[in-house]
């Protein structure tokens, strides 16, 4: 399973890019201070709002900070919030969805109603308001708030999956053998959901990065620290658009888009493996097949 997973080129590319960003988030600040000898807030008075050059590879902001340094350090702010919120959201989704699907009954009713309530709430608007309430909070608080509105979709999927797995032969067999419910859940049901859970996790991760960027953009994210969202927000606040400083706000957005693409690619790979009919195959293989179908006898075509 894992082997086939890694053989898929989409998955490999996606995971590669994702790992690169993770590395950037972990080592970025060190790299900026040790190799580039600067900080995202250092002001270069000789270069205020300058376009990309040899000295400042991505140019400088209007107050004279290096954009590249900001983007690298900002990776930590964005990716950490994304991953933390994704971990939390996945855990909550599993805690709500799996017992609800596995145990059924009154508990299921209660938990489903709870999930549905959160599904109908306008999540981003609520996140906005609550984040405004804790204005200037630490990054993990923002992650917590984002996670609080990210889990319901996942809980619903996990619930229906658990319900279907509960009735499969192998689970029923193990129940007959007298396995405890906890063991049934952890040893029989959960392993079959690794694919779904990891896809969910990645999607939540990107959603977290998106939400953090959006909040920072509205000026309601973490204050003080740098993230891709705050860079874009500062650029807009100091009329980078009006002055045509495109190098200020374009790179952070591209980073977000790249990260999103990477996770989407991994998810496609997971989809293709779990549902072989989806795989777009190899174009050469398709052509060869079509040619064969045209020339050979009907049995080969079917």
């Amino acid at each position, binding site marked *: 399973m894992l082997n086939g997973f890694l053989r898929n080129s989409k998955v490999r590319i996606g995971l590669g890019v994702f790992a690169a960003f993770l590395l950037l988030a972990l080592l970025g600040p060190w790299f900026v201070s040790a190799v580039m000898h600067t900080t995202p807030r250092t002001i270069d008075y000789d270069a205020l709002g300058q376009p990309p050059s040899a000295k400042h590879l991505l140019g400088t902001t209007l107050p004279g900070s290096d954009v590249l340094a900001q983007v690298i350090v900002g990776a930590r702010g964005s990716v950490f919030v994304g991953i933390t919120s994704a971990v939390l959201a996945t855990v909550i989704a599993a805690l709500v969805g799996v017992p609800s699907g596995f145990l059924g009954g009154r508990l299921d009713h209660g938990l489903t109603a709870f999930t549905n309530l959160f599904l109908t709430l*306008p999540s981003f*608007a609520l996140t*906005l*308001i609550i984040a405004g309430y804790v204005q200037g909070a630490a990054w993990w608080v923002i992650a917590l708030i984002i996670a609080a509105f990210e889990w319901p979709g996942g809980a619903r999927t996990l619930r229906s999956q658990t319900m279907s797995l509960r009735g499969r032969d192998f689970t029923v067999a193990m129940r007959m053998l007298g396995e405890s419910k906890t063991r049934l859940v952890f040893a029989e049901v959960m392993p079959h959901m690794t694919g779904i859970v990891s896809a969910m996790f990645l999607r939540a991760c990107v959603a977290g990065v*998106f939400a953090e960027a959006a909040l920072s953009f509205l000026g309601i994210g973490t204050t003080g620290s740098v993230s891709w969202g705050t860079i874009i927000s500062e650029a*807009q606040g100091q009329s980078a658009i009006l002055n*045509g400083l495109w190098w200020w706000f374009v790179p952070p957005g591209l980073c*977000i888009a790249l990260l999103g693409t990477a996770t989407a690619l991994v998810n496609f790979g997971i989809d293709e493996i779990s549902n072989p009919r*989806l795989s777009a195959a190899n174009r050469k293989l398709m052509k060869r097949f079509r040619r064969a179908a045209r020339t050979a006898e009907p049995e080969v075509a079917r």
Partner: protein
Amino acid sequence: MTFWAALTFNFLIPRFMPGDPAATMLRRIQQLTGQAPTPDQIRSVRLFFGGARENLPAQYLHYLNDLVHFRFGLSLSEYPTPVSDLIAQALPWTLLLVGTTTIIAWIVGTALGAYMGWKPGSRFDAIFAPTTTFLHAIPTFWLSLVALWAFAFQLGWFPVSGAYDPDVPYQINNLWFLLSILKYGALPALTLIFIGFNGWLFTMRNVMVTTVSEDYVLLAKAKGLPTWRVLFKYAARNALLPNVTGLALAIGGILGGVLLTEVVFTYPGLGHRLYRATVDHDFPVMQTIFLLITLTVLIANLIADSIYVLLDPRTRDEA
């Protein structure tokens, strides 16, 4: 049940936020008049907001009673405009902008997706699949900024902000006014469509790929039916299901979904209004917009469920 819970949430969340609307109002008075408000004024403002005098359950009952009678109160930040007026001003813009873009994006995405799924692995599919993956991962607000910079400031093709030309009389039956709406709405609309269609395209493509390999599609092909007929009447029609329910849900999410785009383009819609209300601690406006959003989402859910039953006979048996 869900509705009641949502109502209660609506009531509670603003109440637990710090920041006192009365204090904000007093500060505003101080700024306007240039002198500190007298104790008399403070008392009357407090009295007027009523918040501190009633306990929470009493406020709650009050709130429910007001809702039943469709009384939404007065805006605090733009006192004394009734909230219903503010919403009535903002709602048409959001419906116009997001409603049309959602529908156009849906049509474009579904059609392209159907075509892509029809021949998985074709050149068209191979080029478009990665491109749309990338497009789908772009944050809308960032693309709005880039579009604003490129097309409004650099090229000067589109106006920078607003929803209509302020120099043209505000009349619905004035042709120039309608044209200016079109001109001002074009850039936000194009941005939303450009980002929006990708999601539809993907679901459609993936469902289509599985549908195309079904036996009844093969049979239709074997009968010698024209390709377009097999594509639309046999394959696409069945593959459409998830996208149709998706559309119903998306229409429910319209009101809350474009907050950022509206903020970037300073488009006078509901999202912009909600953002302003949040910044200003304007509780009545926030509550009412929330109520509106929750209501539409619930109604859209209901519609989605019933559409599904109409379209897919298999789900009818269970009922």
